[in-house]
């Protein structure tokens, strides 16, 4: 497995776990009793920044570890197949983002708050990123 593929796996898993924790909490906070007039308590805000902090720290640590095993690979620029994989993976992720963004805007017409809409947009960005990294892994496994 190449450094790029390992790197993509690391980011994919960390994205999946970190934001699954966040959206799991956000769902209960936004739909539970722990909010006033649609504005959740600051706990959600703090949780978000804590998770983003740990996401960044773990990304750095994991990338240092995998780069230490294959330093030559890690320092090499993307080759043409890797660039093509990155480009091909952007397309489905973009469609997910586009459709999801419009659906997120549509939530306002359902009588939800801007706080809900912001979370819907964030959720869509998360799904689009998972699709992008997931597609990269698929193409890496397929060969190109």
């Amino acid at each position, binding site marked *: 497995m190449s450094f790029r593929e390992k790197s993509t796996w690391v980011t994919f898993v960390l994205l999946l776990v970190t934001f699954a924790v966040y959206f799991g909490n956000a769902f209960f906070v936004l739909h539970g009793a722990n909010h006033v007039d649609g504005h959740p308590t600051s706990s959600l805000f703090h949780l978000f920044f804590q998770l983003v902090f740990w996401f960044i720290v773990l990304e750095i640590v994991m990338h240092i570890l995998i780069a230490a095993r294959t330093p030559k690979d890690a320092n090499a620029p993307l080759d043409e197949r890797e660039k093509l994989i990155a480009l091909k993976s952007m397309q489905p992720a973009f469609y997910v983002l586009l459709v999801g963004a419009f659906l997120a805007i549509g939530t306002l017409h359902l009588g939800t708050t801007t706080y809900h809409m912001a979370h819907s947009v964030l959720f869509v960005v998360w799904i689009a990123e998972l699709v992008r990294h997931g597609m990269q892994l698929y193409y890496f496994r397929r*060969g190109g």
Partner: protein
Amino acid sequence: MRTPVITNAIRRLRSEHGDMTQQELADYVGVTRQTINAIELEKYSPSLEVAFKIAAVFKTPLEKVFQYRD
């Protein structure tokens, strides 16, 4: 499974050149070992630039390395 249109003789050429490894060929060409493997297994068709570089490593005309099948 799709039938590859561009086939190649890289594996044979590597063995004829002192059992050159995929990593050695990748280093000469400037791509990753995984890319050479994907080309060799006909899962990925390289750009003209990489195709010419591979042919140059083996000091062989391009058409002896890559073949196009209709």
